[in-house]
């Protein structure tokens, strides 16, 4: 008999496999709505990676746990999260909250492609290295591992090898550690299982990756609508399909890749809608991509062929217009040509946004890249940001893709170690050449898709812009009529971006709307001012950190 992590949800038993997240097990059981909002709506998994804060459930009486980040365990009492958690008058504080302080030469935040490569390079040079990652399942987004199963494919196998390489080089890897605070002088505060980790490293490499840009349409907050990457994590890490029948929409290569992965896994993919035109109609862009990255271009073509073989329709120049709840918990997705499909899950990815909160908090210089519609960290050849001792590698510094993230990580790791007196970081020629090649390919790749964010001009007023506070585009448009000079003023007037996710989804579009209204260009200061905590932090973790910081001061 397979080992079993069956828990209860609202009193009903839900079967789960060890290592499976609560979110995956609930999805597998056909349960999609996890929490209620202040306005009475239902929400479930959206990002699948701890960012959106919409998958909240109560676990053993503890409110507001993220189901996507919490592993299932036998006997857990899980419940739908009410909009307003009860304050327990009899609550007592944890007696001696666990805390640990570390001061490595090199602290790597994020154990994905970039972070693992950085850790391996720095540790090999002789530096003391600690890698922190909020996920319990290693590898980051590209190399994400299976929680309990054997590697699914060469991508996962390569990730396992990179993890082994970093560990063999002597890097200490800590999973389930979420960095929530970054302060001048390189002080980092993290939450680990209700306790605290306090890090005062000599140098830090931020390798926090990216999260997905959604396609904001009416209904994008309904349970069952999730990012393409969330569905990928369900499948790759937990062997859970997001639904029996799915539709995929947006722009970019991840949509095609995940559609194929899910089809292979047994899902029926009703439609893949790519917003940009057919590659055959854009031969120059296609040729540029094939020239800069022949191997990856072939992989892409093979995926399309794979979808064709399975009879999955891939339509170009087609966009998602709306999602509605349909009979029996299904979703009806309507597209720009008027067609609609009825599915269990709608997956969306419209590009990526860098997780640059730590970099911005510490004041690292940023430049706006209009081609991708997000900030890029200003860095030297050594991947050091404008803040001394602070390095950035991978997608957190601006979209670059996994191969570039590995090359940047190796350079950052070697250079940070050298800055601490370990090794001399001279032999980086091959990494730099590889990096240049990967960057050329990325530029060509994104010409095939639309990496720049879609303007929301045509979206109806009723479209929700701020998921957390349930603020519609119409309310934000009304707020714009007061002539706020900055998105911060718009935030205070409308509450847009004030919720748990800290404006991860609404900040950029709201800032673009203010920029359009004021005629000012987008730049770092156009966005909400960065603030701690980067992610909501439990009071228990704050109590623990306070003891550790006080004790060491």
């Amino acid at each position: 008999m397979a080992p079993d992590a069956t828990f209860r949800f609202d009193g009903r038993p839900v079967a789960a496999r060890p290592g499976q997240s609560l979110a995956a097990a609930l999805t597998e059981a056909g349960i999609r709505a996890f929490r209620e909002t202040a306005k009475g709506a239902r929400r479930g998994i959206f990002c699948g990676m701890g960012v959106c804060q919409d998958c909240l459930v109560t676990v053993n009486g503890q409110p507001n746990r993220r189901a996507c980040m919490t592993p299932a365990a036998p006997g857990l009492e899980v419940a739908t999260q009410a909009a307003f958690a009860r304050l327990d008058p009899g609550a007592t504080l944890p007696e001696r909250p666990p805390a640990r302080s570390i001061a490595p030469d090199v602290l790597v935040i994020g154990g994905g492609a970039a972070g693992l490569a950085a850790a391996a390079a720095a540790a090999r040079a002789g530096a003391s290295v600690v890698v922190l990652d909020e996920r319990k399942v290693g590898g980051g987004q590209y190399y994400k591992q299976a929680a309990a199963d054997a590697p699914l494919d060469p991508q996962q196998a390569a990730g396992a090898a990179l993890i082994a390489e970093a560990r063999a080089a002597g890097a200490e890897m800590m999973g389930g550690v979420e960095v929530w605070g970054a302060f001048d002088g390189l002080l980092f505060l993290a939450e680990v299982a209700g306790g605290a980790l306090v890090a005062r490293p000599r140098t830090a490499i931020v390798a926090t990756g990216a999260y997905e840009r959604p396609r904001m349409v009416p209904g994008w907050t309904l349970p069952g609508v999730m990012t393409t990457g969330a569905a990928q994590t369900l499948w790759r890490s937990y062997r859970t399909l997001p639904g029996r029948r799915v539709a995929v929409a947006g722009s970019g290569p991840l949509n095609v890749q995940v559609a194929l992965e899910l089809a292979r896994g047994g899902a029926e993919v009703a439609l893949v809608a790519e917003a940009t035109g057919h590659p055959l109609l854009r031969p120059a862009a296609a040729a540029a991509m094939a020239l800069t990255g022949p191997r990856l271009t072939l992989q892409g073509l093979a995926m399309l062929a794979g979808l064709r073989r399975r009879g999955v329709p891939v339509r170009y120049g087609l966009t998602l217009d709306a999602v509605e709840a349909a009979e029996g918990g299904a979703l009806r997705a309507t597209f720009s040509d008027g067609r609609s499909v009825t599915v269990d899950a709608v997956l969306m990815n419209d590009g990526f946004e860098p997780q640059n909160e730590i970099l911005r908090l510490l004041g690292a210089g940023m430049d706006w890249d209009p081609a991708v519609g997000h900030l890029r960290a200003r860095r030297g050849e050594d991947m050091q940001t404008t803040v001394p001792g602070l390095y950035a590698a991978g997608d957190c510094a601006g979209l670059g893709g996994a191969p570039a993230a590995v090359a940047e990580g190796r350079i950052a790791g070697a250079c940070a170690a050298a800055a601490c007196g370990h090794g001399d970081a001279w032999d980086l020629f091959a990494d730099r050449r590889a990096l240049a090649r990967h960057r050329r390919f990325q530029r060509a790749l994104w010409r095939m898709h639309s990496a720049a964010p879609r303007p929301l001009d045509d979206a109806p007023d009723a479209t929700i812009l701020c998921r957390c506070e349930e603020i519609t585009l119409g309310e934000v448009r009304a707020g714009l009529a007061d002539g706020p000079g900055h998105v911060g003023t718009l935030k205070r007037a409308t509450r847009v971006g004030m919720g748990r996710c800290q404006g991860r989804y609404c900040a950029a579009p709201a800032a673009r709307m203010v920029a359009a209204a004021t005629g000012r260009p987008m730049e770092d200061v156009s966005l909400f001012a960065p603030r701690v905590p980067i992610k909501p932090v439990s009071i228990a973790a704050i109590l623990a950190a306070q003891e550790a910081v006080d004790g060491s001061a």
Partner: protein
Amino acid sequence: MAAPDLLVIGGGIVGQTAAIRAAEAGMRVRLVDAGVNAGSTANAGSLHVQLQSRFIRLFPELAPNVEASLPLYLAAVREWERLEAAHGPFELVRQGGLMLAEGAEQMRFLEGKAAREAARGLSVELLDRPALDRLAPWLGPQIVGAELCRDEGKLNPLVANRALRARAAALGVEMRADRIVALEAGAGVAARGASGAVHAARQAIVAAAWGAGALVAPLGLALPVRAEPLHMNITEPGAAQIGHLIQHAERSITLKQFASGQIVIGGGWPAESRGDWATPAVRAASLLGNVALAARLVPAIAGLRVIRTWAGMNTTADGRTVLGRLPAAPSVILAVPGDAGYTLGPLAGRIAGELAAGLPAAEDIAPLSPARFAAPVRLGASAVRLSA
């Protein structure tokens, strides 16, 4: 467009309510605001009345000034209620404030304080733990009692600011984004902005908080205003349970629950200054210390997560409101509200607006006059010919 009758410099709660009152009295008003570090957009929305222990501890020499102002705080809360009735709701709740004691000595301190406050007309009462448990059954076990001040309350500053701004706009107050770099006064006033514009009017109200000192220095006033960067925290929402404003007899803390269910934790923990014209930065020690203290006083909040912190700019002077015409430049009215300036703001603003409009004042503001900071006038700085 004709020059306005009144120029208001600073668009925080004081400038906003001054502009509203003057416009209601029929004046043409222009409000110029730099849009930087307004305490009014960063504050916690506590309506303070009782003496704040933080203030007494930090600035003991100023405590008598604050004590003398107690009746003003009572009047200020009534002014907020009037404004809310006219332009609200602002989520204003006046269920009172509890100042907690953790030992016999703190309880004795509160007894003395309560006696002084009662003498100034405040509605205060001392509660032992059983009495406290009936009002607030969610306090930590170490709390022995509290002082209840029934006059205190809370409101949502974001909602209030927005409604008052709309009111000002409806009255035709002209709002300009500019930073005044020089203010000259004679028969009228002329204020030069960083934008290059010169804003001229018959009179000016300087409601520029920490920025006021530099503006009035050439007009013969050594105003000791200081920008004080302060720290705030807010949690995710919980079910409504905490109606009172919570403070502590000895330690810096305010804690309250907004209508959204969120717990707002502040009380004057320091933030890191990056200069008066830049947003201050959050200090780790303040975040950790402030939230940890809140959780020890009210363990019931321990299940919620902190979702955001921020730092804003408070303004301190000598503990007492500064309100009145400049002795050496009577066309300029100064209005700086003093400690707990958001509470006092609308009262200070209304009085300043009435002063500008030449309306008879109901309150005696002589004790608040800026004359107490009069310095020798630098010659040549104050007189200017106006071509309005």
